[in-house]
């Protein structure tokens, strides 16, 4: 992994920024000419920081675009965003079914409520009932701020509930805060992937 990344680095264009990360790690962001996307990074020890796999369950293309942008602005180097556009696909992704056998275990799930096929409540309920996958933090990300919906989601076991702001600017600001909280402040559960092993 480290070798491959070094090659990418040498072949890449413009140097973007270098900054100190947590625990003394140095993060270096690069972008290929003409794109703004961060491509690779190094740490002091030349090991690649582990990516945080975020599963976004969202059917609104504008919101997918804005979320992706906010993630890049927050700390684009360490997040890998996966998108499922309906509730069934979300569960297939997590449970590695139907074409998703290679899907990584998400470290964080961002879940809309109004979704085709299965809504966010159903997805949340299935995840939080599962002995293994219930440990993955879920943040509801939805246009509804009706008290009933908020309380219902917390009762079903969501880890946090974030109401989508209507203005573009606020949306980006708020969305940046979500991955930052979960990756820098909270400790995410380890990547371990054997079902049931943690709840002995």
């Amino acid at each position, binding site marked *: 992994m480290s070798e491959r990344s070094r090659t990418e680095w040498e072949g890449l264009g413009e140097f973007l920024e270098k900054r100190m990360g947590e625990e003394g790690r140095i993060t270096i962001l690069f972008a290929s000419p003409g794109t703004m996307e961060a491509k690779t990074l190094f740490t002091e020890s030349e090991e690649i920081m582990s990516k945080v796999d975020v599963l976004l369950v969202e059917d609104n293309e504008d919101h997918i675009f804005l979320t992706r942008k906010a993630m890049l602005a927050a700390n684009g180097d360490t997040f890998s965003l996966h998108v499922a556009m309906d509730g069934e696909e979300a569960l297939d992704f997590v449970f590695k079914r139907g074409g998703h056998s290679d899907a990584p275990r998400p470290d964080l799930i961002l879940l809309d409520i109004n979704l085709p096929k299965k809504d966010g409540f159903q997805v949340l309920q299935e995840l939080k009932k599962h002995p293994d996958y219930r440990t993955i933090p879920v943040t509801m990300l939805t246009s509804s701020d009706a008290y009933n919906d908020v309380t219902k989601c917390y009762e079903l076991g969501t880890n*946090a*509930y974030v109401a989508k702001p209507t203005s573009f600017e606020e949306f980006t600001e708020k969305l940046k805060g979500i991955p930052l909280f979960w990756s820098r402040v909270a400790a995410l559960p380890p990547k*371990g992937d054997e079902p049931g092993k*943690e*709840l002995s």
Partner: protein
Amino acid sequence: MDKQIDVLLVEDNEDHIYLTRKALSEGAGAQMKLHIVTDGEAALDFMNHRAPYEGVPSPDLVLLDVKLPKKDGFEVLEALKTDPRFRAIPVIMLTSSDTESDILRGYGLGSNAYIAKPIAFDEFSQKLRAIPEFWNRIATLPAKKVP
């Protein structure tokens, strides 16, 4: 948006209480009113309004240490998350342990977030300040139940 947020801190370490109080007195934490109990049994007494906690508000958010006298944080967490009256209240584990098994245990029992306390004071304060920043400014807390 001026409504007060009642936070129950369950913590027996005086230095940590001091730092938490400080972090929750400014910025997004200024709206938070901190209530403190120093052991696990007192935490459940507070939640249930048992003596000497008659008339205390229901917390909007609980910050819970793991190592506690009488009942530890996991026992308190389990009691809260299996009780329909309290299940919706976000509980943040705030603990010195960052072992994988404790993190998994916390999330498995329904902790809303698990925060490992950094050893350095500065870093600890920074993480503490991030709590109201996220839970007050970014997230929406559940509606307070009127007793």
